[in-house]
């Protein structure tokens, strides 16, 4: 009986499971011609789930196996918000003839990955963490392969699942080494026993490598471009924003909670990875013609910036990390939303297809521009503030050179974001994308993202909230 009450305390996870079950039942009961109702139902349920559990709480259950800190609980709401944006964007794609019968599956699968991420974030024990990681990964592979009639989709999923399995293996190996070294899998128990001997370093590197795959850090990024290109665009958006956010927070938690004693080693490793990730991501993004591949490399370099926050001290670093994730989610989902809208209407995804977009679809072009500016870190958009905060966090700990190199890289990233802006505003095309109207779901999603891009930076309360959650 006591265990049952413990379950009831996990309100966010339970709420999500209820949403999942309702969607599953809807899928069973709704007749074929009313399937479209599932879109509003899913969105409303997710909103309700977010609102009911929006107040961050501190919950410690199952003898410390599950520990949802206030900041983790805030991040869960953020991830739900990111998923909501994806749900709003997916209607046109799901309503197509070839995927109409799979609407329910899409929602079930994406909600399962979200539940996995929830557990990953609040796990305080390596086994629970691994379960969360797998639950977040395996349904994602199904989602990537959702457009199975397209050969790229299958290829993308194969690549993803192979990499995922391999990195899970490495991660587990790291965990087993750690268990061998200290004899426990509880985060709290491990931390004081670590002192930086070779075995523990090896364990840390393996665990880091396992998660680096999810974050697509260089040199674990090779799957990213192909997977993003082949995956349905909505799934690409989720993969790049929501899933990356969860993985980044989980990695930070492990580095702080478990490997807090080895901070010098982990910082050195992080510094190198950051510089390489940002630079490689940027340089490859310049050459991309396909917008989805382009966003893949952009998201690789963004992951490098997220990592900068991990160099900071636990409070400042975590606050700026979570803040960066929110801002990144809204901007990235806006870009993917527009790519998706254009792809569904015209089937075109190349950068040169976007030439003259401002003349035919001025609003879409404008939202896209603002989102790209936010990703590039241009004020007054939110991305500027989030970039500043991660730079400040890393600078505070004395990583001057890393910050300088990352800053110089923002110039390169501005270059390729501007290439898209240039295509939309300056270049003219003989065959531009025709004027079209998006459906209401897409509009709401883009409006929410736009609101976030404009407001999250200028209104400082979001960052303050994260900061306060961490201090108390």
């Amino acid at each position, binding site marked *: 009986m006591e265990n049952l009450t413990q379950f009831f305390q996990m309100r966010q996870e339970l709420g999500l499971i209820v949403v999942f079950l309702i969607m599953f039942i809807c899928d069973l009961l709704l007749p074929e011609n009313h399937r479209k109702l599932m879109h509003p139902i899913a969105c409303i349920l997710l909103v309700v789930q977010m609102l009911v559990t929006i107040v961050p709480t501190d919950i410690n259950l199952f003898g410390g196996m599950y520990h949802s800190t206030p900041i983790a609980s805030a991040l869960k709401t953020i991830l739900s918000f990111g998923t909501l944006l994806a749900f709003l964007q997916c209607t046109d794609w799901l309503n197509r003839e070839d995927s109409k019968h799979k609407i329910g599956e899409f929602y079930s699968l994406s909600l399962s990955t979200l539940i996995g991420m929830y557990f990953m974030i609040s796990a305080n024990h390596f086994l629970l963490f691994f379960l969360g990681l797998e639950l977040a990964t395996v349904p994602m592979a199904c989602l990537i392969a959702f457009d199975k009639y397209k050969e790229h989709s299958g290829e993308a999923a194969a690549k993803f699942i192979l990499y995922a399995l391999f990195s899970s293996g490495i991660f587990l190996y790291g965990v087993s080494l750690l268990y061998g070294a200290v004899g426990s899998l509880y985060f709290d128990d491990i931390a004081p026993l670590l002192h930086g001997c070779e075995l523990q370093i090896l364990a840390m590197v393996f665990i880091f490598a396992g998660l680096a795959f999810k974050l697509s850090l260089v040199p674990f990024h090779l799957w990213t471009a192909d997977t993003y290109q082949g995956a349905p665009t909505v799934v690409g958006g989720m993969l790049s924003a929501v899933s990356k956010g969860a993985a980044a927070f989980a990695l930070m938690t492990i580095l702080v909670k478990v490997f807090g004693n080895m901070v010098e080693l982990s910082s050195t490793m992080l510094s190198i990875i950051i510089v390489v990730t940002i630079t490689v991501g940027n340089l490859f993004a310049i050459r991309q013609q396909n917008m989805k591949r382009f966003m893949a490399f952009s998201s690789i370099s963004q992951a490098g910036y997220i990592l900068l926050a991990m160099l900071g001290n636990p409070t400042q670093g975590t*606050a700026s990390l979570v803040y960066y994730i929110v801002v990144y989610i809204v901007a990235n989902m806006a870009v993917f939303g527009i790519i998706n809208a254009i792809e569904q209407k015209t089937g075109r995804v190349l950068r040169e297809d976007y030439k003259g977009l401002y003349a035919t679809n001025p609003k879409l072009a404008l939202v896209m521009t603002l989102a790209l500016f936010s990703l590039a870190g241009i004020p007054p958009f939110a991305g500027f503030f989030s970039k500043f905060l991660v*730079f400040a966090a890393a*600078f505070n700990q004395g990583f*001057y050179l890393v910050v*300088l190199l990352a800053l110089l890289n923002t110039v390169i990233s501005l270059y390729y974001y*501007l290439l898209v*802006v*240039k295509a939309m505003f300056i270049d003219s095309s003989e065959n531009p994308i025709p004027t079209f109207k998006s459906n209401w779901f897409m509009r709401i999603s883009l409006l929410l993202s736009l609101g976030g891009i404009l407001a999250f930076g200028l209104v400082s309360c979001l960052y303050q909230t994260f900061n306060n959650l961490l201090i108390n």
Partner: protein
Amino acid sequence: MCNILILFVVIPLVMMLGLWASRSLCQVKVVMVSGASLLLALSIYIVFNYIGLRNAGNDAEMLYTSSIMWYEPLNICFSLGVDGISVVMILLSSIIVFTGVFASWRLKPMTKEYFLWYTLLTVGVYGFFISIDLFTMFMFYEVALIPMFLLIGVWGSGRKEYSAMKLTLMLMGGSALILIGILSIYYGAGASTMNITELSQIEIPTNIQHTFFPLLFLGFGILGALFPFHTWSPDGHASAPTAVSMLHAGVLMKLGGYGCFRIAMYLMPEGLAMWGEVFLILTTISVVYGAFSACVQTDLKYINAYSSVSHCGLVLFALLMMTRTSCTGAIMQMLSHGLMTALFFALIGMMYGRTHTRDIREMSGLMKIMPCLAVCYVIAGLANLGLPGFSGFAAEMTIFVGSFENTDTFHRVCTIIATCSIVITAVYILRTVGKFLYGEVNNPEFLQLTDASWDEKVAVFTLIVCVAGLGLAPLWASDLISTSVEPIISQFIK
């Protein structure tokens, strides 16, 4: 927040909303003219009110200060305040924004979008000059950079895409350096405040100053067209539409000099002591090299752009001379150069709109065809080469007198070299004027061209009045500036 300064940001934002809502070209112009006039009136009021407050004995370093907490964990405030330097810069910006509206009166296509981005640019410019918080200042600085890309890329001429990209990326590189400099100041000073006046009271560790001063100075210096990072300026200014060239050369390049003075030199005096001479060499090269480059150009806009490199180099040069007179001269030069270069770009744009060429070899005898514009061009030229009675003379005189006060041999040599630029300036101005304004009309098609229309006259005459006004009565400006230069100067003359 009852601060009159906030209006300088609010009015352009309201203008942007008005532009967004306007449905016809006429409405767009009404919004722009009324907004720009309001800003001009407000800045004239601020100047008089500021002088009044000073005369009444208010000797605080900054006036009209107010501050609200913004990002508390990092002590970022939205702090406003102005001293004599920022007041004249605000006045300069208002004059150029006002005349810029008239200079782009007949611009097509997408007039509404053009003015939207143009107004966003002014938000950045004003915001930069009114804020005294490092972060807020930097934010507005970047706001001012980005609209340039679209303004040049969409409405520019010539190799506009190349120039727009080059300008944006080089300035962005500069701002990356500035950002790291700001972080170093904030954390070096103990992470307690971002307010510039408060920071000036705190000693930043010497090693931090030595490491980060060059980055910060270089970051702002790139916008101030410091050699060898001036290359964005000729291309950018040549490709930009008229009003954007005016605003960019007239005001935005001043952001660089202002930032060097107000942030880099003010807050890092130790770094200045170590690196000052290195940068002095670079600025001397800027001054002379810019002037020589202008001599060999054949495109009117390139001539003026290189002339800007030379004159903006003179601003940084005078600042690095580190005497009270030379620093006052530097601010005067910012003001004077801003007005003159805006006048030049306005005239060049108007002539280009008629002749469709800017190559001085293809034009001749324009004085006979468009006497009004040509005479104005001659006036601008004479002001630029430092004829007494115009602003250029007052500014350059102050600079060179002030530079000579620095008795160190190295500074002397630099001063003498830089003084040569006066002669070179005369060479390229007179050569240009003689070549394309005087002589016989070589192209019969030019005979059909008309002289200035009313909107062009408004823009040009306003600027000429200001240039002559500053030249005939420079004392009010130099008094205003020199009292505010004092606290900054006292940081590094110890």
